[in-house]
């Protein structure tokens, strides 16, 4: 008992602890694979981040070396230029609009498709699922022409709205089973209490669907954040560039200054990585959950 009092976290299973240290072949192989895998992922990214602290002459002298001396100028120049922040702001704006539209409209549609009985319900659902098969790539050329007709080229909305449209299928496919699984008893009880169907949706179903809503938001946000093709077609004015597009164009513009490109690349990673650490469970859970239906 005194053991428990002193070390509650460890004491329940001392025998297991010891066993864990006797590594089987499989576990050893697993550790080797794990370390190799982590290395393959981390080293390239780390290389870019560290090389951003070198100068281009240093880089030309030898591709792989520690900075000598460490130079902050590359990072400082980018952070003090307007471009980086403007790209960041544009990306944020587009991603927020796209996510907001996809989730609000997607949740409404998923509610109708899961909680109402009507004739063409499955037909509508199938229509949306067809969209799952076609990532934005296939439709971009005609989409570009259409946006030009609508005079939406070089407008952030011109990218955000189609991105929302292309995020709708995933959103609906994830939300519908989730909403469907919420017991009908809850809805009956709400009806008995005099709540209309829409009140039930707003006051009860949506709050209960919060985990799924977070998941679809994260998916829509990341998709928009990383998008390259549509912004590439739609934006000609640098002032509208989103981060991926800005990064690619920065490379074209400063092709001689390798160090600057590397610094710009590593700075572009930071928002995505921060967001990922924050939303990790949702992204992973959402993707695997989405796939399992």
């Amino acid at each position, binding site marked *: 008992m005194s053991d428990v009092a002193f070390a509650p976290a460890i004491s329940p299973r001392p025998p297991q602890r010891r066993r*864990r240290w006797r590594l089987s072949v499989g*576990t050893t192989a697993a550790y080797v*694979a794990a370390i190799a*895998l982590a290395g393959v*992922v981390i080293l390239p990214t780390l290389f*870019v981040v560290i090389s951003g602290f070198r100068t281009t002459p240093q880089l030309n002298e030898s591709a792989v070396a520690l900075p000598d001396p460490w130079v902050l100028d590359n990072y400082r120049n980018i952070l003090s230029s307007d471009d980086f922040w403007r790209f960041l702001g544009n990306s944020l704006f587009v991603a927020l609009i796209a996510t907001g539209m996809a989730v609000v409209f997607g949740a409404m549609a998923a509610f109708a498709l899961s909680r109402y009985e009507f004739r063409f319900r499955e037909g509508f659902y199938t229509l949306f699922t067809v969209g799952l098969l*076609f990532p934005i*790539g296939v439709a971009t050329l005609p989409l570009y022409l259409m946006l030009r007709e609508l005079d939406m080229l070089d407008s952030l909305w011109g990218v955000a709205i189609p991105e929302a449209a*292309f995020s709708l299928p995933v959103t609906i496919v994830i939300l519908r089973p989730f909403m469907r699984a919420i017991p009908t008893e809850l809805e009956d009880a709400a009806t008995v209490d005099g709540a209309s169907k829409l009140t039930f949706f707003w006051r009860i179903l949506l709050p209960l669907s919060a985990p799924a809503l977070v998941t679809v938001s994260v998916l829509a946000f990341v998709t928009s954040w990383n998008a390259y093709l549509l912004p590439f077609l739609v934006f000609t004015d640098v002032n509208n560039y989103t981060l991926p597009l800005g990064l690619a164009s920065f490379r074209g513009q400063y092709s001689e200054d390798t160090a600057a490109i590397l610094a710009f690349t590593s700075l572009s990673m930071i928002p995505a990585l921060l967001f990922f650490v924050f939303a990790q469970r949702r*992204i992973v859970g959402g993707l695997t959950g989405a796939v399992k239906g």
Partner: protein
Amino acid sequence: MVSTSPDRVTDLPQALAGRAPARPARRRGVLRRRLELSFLIGPALLLFVGFVLVPIGVAVYYSLFDWNGFGPIDDFAGLRNYRTALTDDTFLESIQHNLVIVGLSLVLQLPLSLGIAFLLNRRLRGQTLLRLIVFIPYVLSEAVTALVWLALLQPNGAADQTLEALGLGGLTQLWLADRDIVLYTIFVVATWKYIGFGIILFLAGLAGIPKELREAAALDGASSWQTVRHVVLPLLGPTIRIWIFLSVIGSLQLFDLVWIMTEGGPANGSEMMATYLIDEGFRRYRFGYGSAVAVILFTICFIFALLYQRFALRRDMDGAVTGGSR
């Protein structure tokens, strides 16, 4: 927070009575329901039809014309654009390249990510951290991935120097400038970016397989390979089939990585259907022709999706697309 207090329960008979077929009230109910439904589905439907389905439909129309994107669309070409595309060496080669990527993914990426998932599917120290790390490339944009690897793969760059340091200096290549190598380089970079997704997916699938089943197989004297082959793999079937689906569709549409790294070059050595489409349609103002290419790409994906849905996914996907398995 749904109230079930006693005084509310007395409302129940009234509520039930309200459903009794009092005709005018019912008609009003029907109208109200229709309005509700239109309000709920309308915006999503409008958005989806307007920005997903219509552009695809319009592409079919444009594909029948020769059109540079400006002025009237009146130069009717019939199916000429399709004929041109399907006899154009570069385009045919780009289809081949996409198929090579599809094949390599199935033959290399699938076993690799399955194998790693099997290895990692046990209690390891730092497991959470590892899963986090493995997933990093998937979260980075393709633009970032492309620039990271452009830096690594420069002639005499980090990749070459690493090989030399390992005593494999003979293996260094012009990774992105050699027409015979570039496709495989692209595949390696794509693998780097996407393998984490497969691993996480398979780990989630493996976590869903009850331990008892493997133990029972082991008790019956099955070797670990037999257990994997006859117990685990079949149970992982749905996950594997979904992975294959996503991987094939993704490989057929590959664009961002290739465009930023090579623009399809050198000498079309890494040209993909999507890069060809943007190059011809958008860059050279051949919108009719580009649309035809888009329709072909679309059709290839669609046929694959339908067939795959019909023959492989039907059991798994709750009737999406083919419908009615429920």
